[in-house]
C-alpha cells in the first residue's frame, strides 16, 4: 500500500507541494510562537533595582477586602493609601530607616512620566552623582544628567504647585526611572504620604513587628516594587497575546487549507481511487493509503517547520523588542518542548485534515471507475450538512448573542476573532449550496463555458473559491470590525480635550477657561470604584470624577443632578435610578451613593461618574474643552496648546494602541500568505485535473486564445464567488456590530470598511487565482509531466 501512496506522491508532487509548504509555515509559526511564549513565561528574574541596596522594604498593603457570599475577596487598590505612621514608627524602632516617597514631578522641558523622590532614597537604587552635590536646601534639587547644568534654575511642577529650584547636582542614568530628587523635608512637604520604608533590620523581625498591616519585601521579591516591573509584566503578557493569537490564527488557517486541499485531492482522484478498488483494494486499504499520504506529508512538513522555527523565533523576538511589544532585555532560549508540540500539532493537523477525505475515499465504489464522466451527484454529504449546520448555528449564536445580551462583548478581540473564524468555516462548508445560484448570476458576465463548468461541479467550484473566501473574509471581517470600533471611539471623543500625565493644576485649568472661543471646560479625573456584583464578586469599574457628566447617552434619570452624595453609572452595573448603593473609592474608603442616572455603556465602557470630591489623589489628567458656537476648532486648539504648554498636550481622538494594530497586521499577513499558497495549490490541481477538458475545447474548434479566455473567465468566476461569500461574511459581522454599537451608544454609527487594505487583499486573491489558472496551462503541464 505504501508503494501506491509513494508513487502517487511522486507523480502528483505539484499537488502536494503547497500542502507541505502550508504545513511547514504553520508548524514553523507554532514552534516559533511556542519558543517566544516560553521566553515570556520563563523570563529571567531581573534583580531588584529601586531598592537594590535595602535589605528589607516595607510598603503599604493597598488592598481592598470585602466579605461576599463566596468569602472574603481581595483586590489591589487603584490608589495607594500610603503607610500608616504607626507602622513607620514600629519599623523605625528596629533600627535606622530610609523613608521613600514617590510622586509625579514634571521638569519643564523634561520627559513625561518623571517622579519626585527624597534624596535619602537615591542611594537605595545605586544612583550616583556625576556632577555637583546632594540637595541641602529646600530650594535645591538633583536632576538627571543631560538637561540643565549645575547651578541652573529649573521649573518643577507637582500635583498641587509649580516652583523654581536650583540644580545642585546631576545623577547618572538608571534604567528604571527618571527622578528629580528633593531634600527629604521638601519631599515630605510636597507628598506627605509615605510610599516605602527601607530598613537594615532582619526581615523576620520586621515581619514580626509589622504583622498584617503592611507588605514586607526582601530578596528577589523587592523586584516587584520596581517601577518597570509592572510595565515589563504587562509587555510580556501583551507579547504573549499577539504571538498566541498569531499561532491560533495560523493553526486555524493551516487546518482549513490542508483539509480543503486533501478533500479536493480526493474529489479529483475519485476515478483513480475507484480503479484501485476494482483492482481489489478494500475500502480500508484505500482509506489507509490516503491516510498514509497525509501522514507522510505531515511528517515532512512538520520536520521542515521545526527546522525553520528556531530562526523564526529569534527574528520574532527581535521584532517584538524593536516594536516595543516586549521589554528591551527580552530574548528567547532554546527549550525543546515547543518543537515537540509543534511537530505533534503539525502531524495531527495533517491527519485531521485528511481524515474526512480518507473516510470519503473509502466509500468510493469500484463502479465509479467505469463511468466516464465525473459529474457530481449530491452537492453536500450528510456529514458536511451536519458540520455546516452546526458551525452555522454557532456563528449565528456568536453574532446574535451579544446583540441581545451583552453588546460590549462584541468589541473584544476574544469575541470577534472566533466569531469570524466560525462564520467563515460555516460559509465554506455550506458554500456548494449557494454556488449554483451565485454562479448563474455571475455567469451572465463570464459566459456559458465558465458558468456550466462551475455549475456541473459545485463542490469543486466551492473548493476553489474557499481559499479566496478565507483570505478575503478574514481580512474583511477583522479590519472592518477594528475600523468600525475605532471610528465609534473617535466619534465619542469628538470634542477637543487636553491630556496630561502630570496633571493640570488649578492655574492651568483657569488659563484654559480663558482661551478665546472656549465656552466651558470639564475637568475629568480618572479614578476607579469597586462594587459588589451579585453578592459574589468584587468588581473594579473605571470611574471619572467630573465637574459635570459629559454628553453621554442617558437611559434613565438626570445626570445633571449629580452631587457629592450621588453617582451616575452605565448599564453594565445593572442598577436602577433612585437605588442606594454601597461602593468603595479608589483608595478603598467605603461610600454610600444614590443612583441619579443610568447611561449607556458606550464603546469602551462609560463606567461610573462621581463628583470631584471623590477623586482622591488622582490628578487632573483629562480636560474636555467645549467650543463656543462659531469658534474655530483649529484656533481654539492652538490657544489651548499655549495655555497648557509643558503640562499637557491636546488630544483629539483616542486611537488604537500601536501594539494591537501591528499585531493584527502581522496576523492577517501570515493568514494571507498561507491562504495564497492554498489558492495556488487548488487552482493548479484543478487545472491539471481538467486539462483533458481544455484539450476537448481545442478539438471542438476553439482557438488557443479562446481556451485561455475560457480559463480566465472561469478563474474570475471562481474568485468572484469567493469574494461574494467573503463580503457576505463581512456584512453579517458588520450588521451584528452595528446593532451592538447602536445599543451601546444609542446612535446609528456607520460601519467602516477600510477599502484600501481589504481591496488590495481581494485584488491579490483574484490575481493569484488568475495567474495560477493560466500558468498551469495544459501545454506546459504536459511538458512537465513528461519530464517527470
Amino acid at each position, binding site marked *: *500500500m505504501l508503494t501506491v501512496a509513494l*508513487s502517487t506522491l511522486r507523480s502528483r508532487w505539484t499537488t502536494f507541494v503547497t500542502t507541505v509548504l502550508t504545513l511547514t509555515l504553520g508548524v514553523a509559526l507554532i514552534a516559533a510562537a511556542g519558543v517566544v511564549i516560553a521566553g515570556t513565561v520563563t523570563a529571567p528574574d531581573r534583580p531588584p533595582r529601586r531598592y537594590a541596596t535595602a535589605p528589607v522594604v516595607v510598603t503599604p498593603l493597598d488592598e481592598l477586602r470585602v466579605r461576599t457570599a463566596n468569602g472574603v475577596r481581595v483586590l489591589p487598590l487603584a490608589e495607594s493609601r500610603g503607610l500608616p505612621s504607626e507602622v513607620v514608627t514600629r519599623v523605625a524602632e528596629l533600627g535606622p530607616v530610609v523613608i521613600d516617597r514617590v510622586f509625579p514631578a514634571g521638569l519643564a522641558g523634561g520627559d513625561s512620566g518623571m517622579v519626585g523622590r527624597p534624596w535619602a532614597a537615591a542611594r537605595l537604587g545605586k544612583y550616583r552623582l556625576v556632577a555637583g552635590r546632594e540637595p541641602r536646601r529646600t530650594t535645591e534639587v538633583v536632576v538627571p544628567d543631560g538637561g540643565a547644568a549645575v547651578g541652573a534654575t529649573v521649573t518643577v511642577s507637582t500635583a498641587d504647585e509649580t516652583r523654581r529650584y536650583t540644580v545642585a547636582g546631576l545623577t547618572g542614568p538608571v534604567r528604571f526611572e527618571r527622578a528629580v530628587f528633593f531634600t527629604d523635608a521638601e519631599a515630605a512637604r510636597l507628598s506627605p504620604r509615605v510610599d516605602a520604608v527601607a530598613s537594615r533590620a532582619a526581615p523576620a523581625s520586621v515581619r514580626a513587628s509589622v504583622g498584617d498591616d503592611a507588605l514586607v519585601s526582601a530578596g528577589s521579591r523587592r523586584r516587584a516594587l520596581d517601577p518597570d516591573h509592572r510595565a515589563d509584566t504587562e509587555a510580556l503578557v501583551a507579547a504573549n497575546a499577539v504571538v498566541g493569537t498569531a499561532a491560533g490564527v495560523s493553526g486555524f488557517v493551516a487546518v482549513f487549507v490542508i483539509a480543503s486541499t486533501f478533500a479536493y485531492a480526493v474529489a479529483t482522484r475519485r476515478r483513480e481511487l475507484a*480503479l484501485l478498488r476494482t*483492482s*481489489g483494494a478494500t475500502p480500508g486499504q484505500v482509506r489507509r493509503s490516503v491516510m498514509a499520504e497525509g501522514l507522510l506529508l505531515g511528517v515532512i512538513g512538520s520536520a521542515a517547520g521545526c527546522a525553520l522555527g528556531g530562526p523564526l523565533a529569534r527574528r520574532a523576538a527581535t521584532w517584538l523588542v524593536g516594536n516595543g511589544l516586549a521589554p528591551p532585555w527580552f530574548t528567547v532560549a532554546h527549550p525543546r518542548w515547543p518543537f515537540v508540540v509543534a511537530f505533534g500539532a503539525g502531524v495531527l493537523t495533517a491527519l485531521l485534515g485528511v481524515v474526512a477525505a480518507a473516510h470519503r475515499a473509502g466509500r468510493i465504489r469500484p*463502479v465509479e471507475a467505469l463511468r466516464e464522466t465525473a459529474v457530481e451527484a449530491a452537492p453536500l454529504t450528510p456529514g458536511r450538512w451536519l458540520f455546516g449546520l452546526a458551525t452555522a448555528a454557532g456563528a449565528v449564536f456568536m453574532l446574535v448573542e451579544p446583540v441581545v445580551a451583552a453588546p460590549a462583548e462584541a468589541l473584544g478581540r476574544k469575541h470577534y476573532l472566533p466569531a469570524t473564524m466560525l462564520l467563515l468555516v460555516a460559509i465554506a462548508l455550506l458554500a456548494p449550496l449557494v454556488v449554483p445560484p451565485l454562479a448563474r448570476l455571475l455567469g451572465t458576465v463570464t459566459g456559458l463555458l465558465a458558468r456550466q463548468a462551475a455549475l456541473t461541479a459545485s463542490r469543486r467550484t466551492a473548493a476553489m473559491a474557499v481559499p479566496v473566501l478565507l483570505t478575503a473574509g478574514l481580512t474583511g471581517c477583522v479590519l472592518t470590525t477594528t475600523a468600525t470600533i475605532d471610528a465609534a471611539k473617535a466619534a465619542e471623543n469628538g470634542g477637543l480635550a487636553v491630556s496630561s500625565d502630570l496633571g493640570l493644576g488649578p492655574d492651568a485649568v483657569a488659563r484654559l477657561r480663558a482661551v478665546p472661543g472656549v465656552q466651558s471646560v470639564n475637568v475629568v479625573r480618572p479614578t476607579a470604584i469597586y462594587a459588589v456584583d451579585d453578592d459574589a464578586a468584587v468588581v473594579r469599574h473605571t470611574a471619572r470624577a467630573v465637574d459635570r457628566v459629559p454628553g453621554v447617552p442617558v437611559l434613565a434619570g438626570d445626570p445633571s443632578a449629580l452631587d457629592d452624595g450621588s453617582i451616575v453609572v452605565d448599564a453594565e452595573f445593572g442598577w436602577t435610578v433612585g437605588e442606594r448603593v454601597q461602593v468603595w473609592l479608589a483608595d478603598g474608603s467605603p461610600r454610600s451613593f444614590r443612583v441619579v442616572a443610568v447611561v449607556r455603556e458606550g464603546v469602551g465602557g462609560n463606567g461610573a461618574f462621581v463628583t470631584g470630591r471623590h477623586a482622591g489623589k488622582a490628578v487632573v489628567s483629562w480636560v474636555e474643552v467645549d467650543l463656543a458656537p462659531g469658534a474655530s476648532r483649529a484656533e481654539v486648539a492652538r490657544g489651548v496648546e499655549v495655555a497648557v504648554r509643558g503640562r499637557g498636550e491636546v488630544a483629539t481622538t483616542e486611537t488604537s494602541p500601536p501594539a494591537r494594530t501591528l499585531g493584527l497586521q502581522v496576523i492577517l499577513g501570515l493568514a494571507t500568505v498561507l491562504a495564497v499558497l492554498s489558492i495556488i495549490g487548488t487552482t493548479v490541481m484543478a487545472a491539471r485535473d481538467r486539462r483533458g477538458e481544455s484539450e476537448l475545447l481545442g478539438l471542438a474548434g476553439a482557438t488557443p486564445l479562446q481556451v485561455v479566455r475560457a480559463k480566465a473567465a472561469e478563474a474570475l468566476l471562481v474568485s468572484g464567488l469567493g469574494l461574494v461569500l467573503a463580503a457576505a461574511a463581512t456584512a453579517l459581522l458588520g450588521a451584528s456590530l452595528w446593532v451592538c454599537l447602536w445599543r451601546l451608544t444609542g446612535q446609528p454609527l456607520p460601519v467602516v470598511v477600510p477599502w484600501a487594505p481589504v481591496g488590495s487583499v481581494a485584488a491579490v486573491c483574484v490575481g493569484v487565482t488568475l495567474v495560477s489558472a493560466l500558468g498551469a496551462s495544459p501545454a506546459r503541464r504536459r511538458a512537465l509531466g513528461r519530464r517527470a
Partner: protein
Amino acid sequence: MRAGRGWAVLIGMDDQAVRLRAVTKTYGRRSARVTALDDVDLDFPAGTFTAVMGPSGSGKSTLLQCAAGLDRPDRGSVLVAGADLTRMSETRLARLRRDRIGFVFQSFNLLPTLTAEQNVGLPLRLAGRHPGRAAIRTALAQVGLTGRERHRPGELSGGQQQRVAIARALVSAPPVLFADEPTGALDSTSGRGVLEMLRAMSGRTIVMVTHDPVAAAYADRVVFLVDGRPVDELDRPTSASVVERMTRLVEPAC
C-alpha cells in the same frame, strides 16, 4: 465455518460459476429513471466462455458490473462460487474480487502512475502477498510483453495496455474472468490477439460483454439482452449466425 459452508454449497450445487437471480437495477430518480436490469435470471456454467450482446443501453455493462460485484443491484441476488455478493460488506466483496474474479475493461483502467510490472502486481500486493518478480514476468511474457515491464501505461499502445490489463487479471489465477468490451478500443489485429488469448484460457469461466459479432463468435455461447432482459441465446455461435440473430432482435424495435 464460512469457508466450509461455501464449499458445501459449491459441491452441492451444479457447476454454475455465476448465478443471477431476479436481479433488478435502476438508475436515476423519478422522471429520469432508467431500468438497466429488469428481473434477470441468468447462469454462467463453470469453465465456459459466454458473450453478452445487445444494443446500446440494453443493460449489458450493468449486468457485468452487478455479476462481478462492482455494483450492487437494487433487488435480487448474485452468487459467485455459491457466495451471495449482494449480502457482503464492501471489504469482503473487495477480498472476494481480489481472489476469485478477474477483470478486463474496454478502457484498460490501469493506474497511470504505476509501471506495467507494478500494475500487474497490484492485486497481489493489495492482498498482502509479495508479488514474485518471476510470476509477474511470466504473466507479462504470456501476453507477449517481455521487455516492457518498466513502462508506464502512457508509454504503451492500446493493445499493449489491454494485454497488461489481462496479465493483471490473470496474475492471481481467478476462476472467473469478466471482460467489458475488451476489444472496443483496439484495432482488429490487436483485438484478435486479445480474443485468442481469452479463448485459450481453458478451464476458466469467462463472461464477455461485446457488441462486435466477430468477438462474440469466439465464445461458447451468446446471450442476447434487450431492455434489461435476456431474450435469446445461441450456442456455438459464428459471426454470421450472431449477425443474423442480432438483426432479428433489433428490427422489431425500429
